[in-house]
C-alpha cells in the first residue's frame, strides 16, 4: 500500500480542511498505485458491462451511450484519487438511473433505448449532469483558491499590523 504523499501530509489549515490529501490507497498521478487503481476501475466497468450485455442488453446499450462523458473522464483523468472520474461518474450514473428504471419497468428493449436516444431531452439530461460534473471539477479549485487567498491575505495583514504596533511601542530592538 502506498504511503500518503509527504507534501500532502504536512498540509495544514485551509488546504487541509479541504481534505486534499488523497485517501490511503489512492496513488499520485502516474504512480503504479494510481495506474492499478484506474485499471481496476476499468476492469470493473468492463465486467459490469459484459454481464449486462449478456442479461440486460438494452440497459447495457443505454449505459454505453450515456456513460461517454465518464469514459472521457477516465481517459483524461490524471489526478490523484481519480477526482474527475469520482466527480463526473456519480452524476453521469445518477442521470442514467431514471432511464434505466423506465426500461426495466416499461419496455425493456433496444427500440426503447433508441427511442430515448432520439429525444434531445435524454441527451440534455444525461450529458447535462455529466457536464455539470465537469464544470464542478474545474470551478471548485478556482473558488477554493480565491477563498484561501483572501484568508492568507488577512493573516498576513494582521501580522504586519502587529509588527508595526510592536515596533511602535518597543522600537527596532524588538526585532532582535
Amino acid at each position, binding site marked *: 500500500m502506498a504511503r500518503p504523499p509527504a507534501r500532502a501530509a504536512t498540509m495544514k489549515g485551509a488546504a487541509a480542511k479541504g481534505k486534499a490529501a488523497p485517501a490511503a490507497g489512492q496513488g499520485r498521478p502516474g504512480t503504479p498505485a494510481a495506474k492499478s487503481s484506474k485499471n481496476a476501475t476499468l476492469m470493473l466497468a468492463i465486467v459490469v458491462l459484459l454481464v449486462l450485455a449478456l442479461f440486460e442488453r438494452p440497459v447495457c446499450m443505454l449505459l454505453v451511450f450515456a456513460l461517454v462523458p465518464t469514459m472521457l473522464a477516465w481517459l483524461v483523468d490524471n489526478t490523484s484519487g481519480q477526482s474527475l472520474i469520482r466527480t463526473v461518474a456519480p452524476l453521469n450514473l445518477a442521470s442514467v*438511473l*431514471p432511464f434505466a428504471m423506465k426500461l426495466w419497468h416499461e419496455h425493456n428493449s433496444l427500440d426503447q433505448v433508441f427511442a430515448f436516444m432520439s429525444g434531445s431531452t435524454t441527451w440534455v439530461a444525461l450529458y447535462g449532469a455529466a457536464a455539470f460534473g465537469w464544470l*464542478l471539477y474545474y470551478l471548485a*479549485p478556482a473558488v477554493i*483558491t480565491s477563498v*484561501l487567498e483572501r484568508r492568507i491575505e488577512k493573516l498576513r495583514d494582521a*501580522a504586519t499590523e502587529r509588527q508595526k504596533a*510592536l515596533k511602535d511601542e518597543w522600537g527596532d530592538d524588538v526585532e532582535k
Partner: protein
Amino acid sequence: MSVQPQANPSMSAASGAAVRLKDRFDIHYDKPLPGLRSPSAAAFVAEDVKTPGSRHFAMICDPKMPPRLEAIRKLQLLKSYGVLTPVEVGAVDWAPANRRMFAIVCEQPLGERLAGPTDNAITPWGEEALVAHIVAPIVQTLLDLDREILPHRGIRPGNIFFRDANRRVAMLGDCMTSPPGLYQSVVYETIEGALAQSHTRGAGSPAQDLYALGVLVLHLLFGKLPCAGQTEEKIVEEKIKRGSFYTLVSEQRVPAGLSELLRGLLVDDPQARWRLGDIQMWLDGRRMTIKQPVPAIRAPRGFEIAGEECETARHLALALDMQEPEVASRMIRGPNFETWITRTLGDKQVVEAINMAFSTRSESAGGAAGQNAQMVSRVLMALDPPAPIRFRDAATAVDGIGSLLAVTMLNAGDLMLPTEILQARLPQFWCQRQGSTKGEDQATIRFFDKMLRFLDDKRPGYGIERVAYEMTPGLHCLSPIIESRYVEQMRDMLPAIEFAVQAKTVDVSPVDRHIAAFMAVYENNVDEGLLYTLISSDPAARVLGTLQLLAYLQETYGPPQVPALIQLFGQQAKPVIERFRSRYTRTRMQTGLTAILKESSLRKLADYLDSADEQRKDAQRFQRARLEYQQTIKQMEKAVQQTQELNASAKMAGHSVAVKIASLISSAIVGVTLFAMGVL
C-alpha cells in the same frame, strides 16, 4: 545680615552684624578682639543669648587650615580651666568672607596674654614667680591633658594667657584652630619637630610639650628668645651637634634653682626627658636626679659633606637632607659612605637599617629619579630613626601626613608628594625603624597599609580624597561644589549641595569624588555600590546612583524640601526614563514625573525613577513582545509559503469538494428517482 537661611537650617539668624551659632551664641563680626586672635583664627565677641553678660569670644578658623577636631572633642570633655576650652563649635555663615567658616566659641580669659604673638623680647621673670605663676599652673594643665592623651603643641609666650587679671595663674591658649605645632618656632620644637615642616609636625606626645615648657622657662628667665638671631637651619644643626640644652642656654648662666628643671626638660632623648610626675616632684621640692641620655655613637673620623664633618649618624642624615636627592643618592651609593658607616661609625643597628633601606624597593611614578629619592629617604630614616620622614621637599612626622595632605589640598598644592610618600610605603618603613616593643607601630603600619589600598583604588569613595578624610578628622569636605559651605558633618551636606545647585555652581552631577569620599568616611550605611555608579558609563545609572545617595541623605538628615535639586534631577531624568523600552511606559513615566517633582522628595523621586517593579514589568513585557514579533515573522513566512503552495493545495481541495458535491447531488437524484418510481 545675609545668612541664606534656606541652605542653613541648623542656624537661625541673629540681629545686627552677627551670626548665630547653634541657637546660642551671637558672633559679632563687627566686634573683633585682636588681643585674643590666634595666628590662624581671628577673634570676635560672642554673646551667649541664654546667659546675657557672659564673656565669650569666637575664633573664626582659617578655612585653609584644618582644625584639630580631636583636640576640640577632648577639650570639650575635659573642661579644664588651664587651657582655652571650646564651649560651642560649628560652621557659621560668615558674611565678611562670603562663605561658611568654622567657629570655636570659648570663654574669654580674665587676664591678658603673656606676650604678644610676635614678641621675642619679654620682660624677664624672676625665678620664683616663673615657677609659681607659669610652670606650676601649666604642669597642672598638662596633667589634665595627659589624662586625655592630648598634647597641646602650642606652648609659647604668645599663646599663654592668664586666668586672672593679676597675671598670677597662667593658662594655655589655643591648640584647636590649626595643625599641631604649626606656629611653634624651631626653638620651641624638639629636634624631631624642628626637622619637620611646620604644618606636618604631628600631634606627637606630651614629651614635646615638656620640651617646649623648658624652652619657655629659658625664654621668660632671660627675657629673650633663645638662639635669637640665628637661622632655623643653624639652630637645628646646633641642637643636633651640641644638644638642645647647650644650644639654647648657650653662654648664659642658668640659676641653680632652675638648672635641674631645664636639664630634665631639654634632654633630646624623649625617653630620658622628665615626665610630668618628675616635674611635680620637683615642684614639691624633691631633688631629682637627671637621667643621662645614652650618647649618640660618634665616629672617630667625620664624613665630609660640603665641607661639613659629620660625626654622628643623625648629623650625617641632616647633611644629606640638605643635598639634592640626586647628589645625596650618589654619595650614598659611593664607596666612602659604605666604608664610613660600616668601619668608621661601626653602629650595627645603622648598618642593618641601611641594608634594609637598600633592599626595599617600591614602584615610583618618577622613574629612576623617584626611586633614588625614595632610597635617600629610607637611608635618612635608617641614619636617624626618630626624625620625620624626609622625602624630596617634604619633611613630615608620621602622624603629620594627614596634615600634609589636607594643607596641600586646601591650598591647591601638588598632591604628587604626599601620594608618593604613601605609595613608597615610607611611613611603614619609618615605623619599622622605631623598634618599639609596643603594638602601636604595628597598628600604624596596618593603618597605612589600609590607606595605601584606599589610595590605589580609583573608584569614587576611594583614592587620595578618601585618604585625606580618613587621616584628617577635622577636614571639611573639599569638593569645589560645596567647599565654601564648610561641610564638616553629614547633616550639612545636603543643604550645601542644594545651595550650590541654587547658586548654579553645579549643573551636571552634584556628587563628585570629594563628596563620595567624605560620605564613605562619615556615613557607614552608604551602599558602596551606589558610589561606584557615579563613574558608570551609563548616564542613567549615574543619575540614579547620585539620586539614591542624596535621597539617603535627605531621609537621614533632611531637609525635607530641596527644590533646586529636585528640578536638577527632573532635567536629568530623560536618560533614566529612556531606559524603559516601552514607549507607552516612557510617556506614562514622563507624565507622572511632573507630579512627583512637585513633592520635592528625593526619596519619592528615586523610588519613582528606580522602581524595580516597573523595570521588571518592562523587561518581561519586552521579552513577550520580542517573542510575539518572532511569531509574527513566522506567521508571515507561513503565509508566503501557503501562497506558494496555494495552487496545488487549492486544486486538491477543490477536487475533493467537487467529488463531495457530485456525490451529494447524485445521491439526491437517485433518491428522487427511486421515490418517483415508487421503489421507495
